[in-house]
């Protein structure tokens, strides 16, 4: 199934202009992140901490709805879904 990915800020820089991913039917959000993380060490470090947990500050949105941290592992994607990934900046 085709999933559209909108990556912002450092994600866009590291992962590149990924606009579509082809994932197996029934894949969840973690599978999508694992696919993106597999592209480089930098990409993996950006998404996962040393324990392999998805970094808490990253904002995920599926079809423009914010994904709560508590439901991140249980989200199942469907054909045509759009996933936005934004690692917020903090400086000023």
């Amino acid at each position: 199934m085709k999933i559209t990915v909108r990556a912002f800020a450092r994600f866009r820089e590291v992962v590149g202009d990924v606009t579509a991913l082809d994932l197996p039917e029934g894949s969840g959000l973690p599978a999508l992140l694992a696919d993106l993380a597999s592209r480089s060490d930098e990409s993996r470090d950006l998404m996962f901490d040393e324990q392999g947990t998805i970094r808490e500050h990253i904002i995920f949105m599926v079809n423009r709805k914010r994904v709560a941290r508590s439901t991140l592992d249980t989200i199942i994607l469907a054909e045509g879904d759009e996933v936005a990934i934004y690692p917020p900046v903090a400086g000023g």
Partner: protein
Amino acid sequence: MVKHLIIVCRTQGRFLTGGMLTDREIHRYSRQIAFIGEEGQERLKAAHVVLAGAGGLGCPAAIYLAVAGVGRLTIIDSDQVEMTNLNRQILHWEQDIGRNKTVSAREKLEAMNPDLIIEDVCEVITGQNASILIGQAGLIIDALDNFPARYALNLAALERGIPCIHGAVSGYDGHITTVIPGETACLQCIFPDPPGGSEFPIMGTTAGIIGLMQAQEAIKFLTGGGTLLKNRLLIWDGRDSSVSFLDLERDPECRACGGRTQGPGIKRGES
């Protein structure tokens, strides 16, 4: 005269200054009065804006709010000027190294526009003092450089019902959103967990772009013009000069605002 009386009534004592424009002010601001009208200019004159942070975001935001004629500015920052600030913190110059940023900023702003009231507060914003520091201001610019202070400011703004324009930057990246207590997602709804790291690489131009967006958002809020970034996160990517938006919504479980049902009925142009 009736118009001026109405404005004074609407402000409900939030402001020290305001009211009728002088001939000098009408002349000084004539190019923007042609756009926002005398009533808009009077609203700017009557406004009290807190600038939390006199750094990369706060400097450009303060400059444009000052020259636009915002009547009272309170600048809060605990830092002293360092050499490494000078690539982006454009109110601070080589001669200011070692001086309090708030004093350095106030002096430049007073020179730019002597008609304003500019207060400098050299304090770290914490959960203990944030509410006192923001006082009865009508609007806050979150131009801080760390999330613990941003969260404290967010909580105090929610408690007092004061709108807050949040901005942040790193490298070529930046974002901005406007938080209206009781109406929009608050900072904690949007960013429940703080980004890692403590010192971010920043291009001065990125801070300038986002700081000016914050100033413009403030002017729109104060004068009632345009459409605000309510429940929208504007994401700036300077690599290709692109702008994207993320739609936001309140988190009913938010640690900061989840329990608050209704704000104090803030209306634009009446901050």
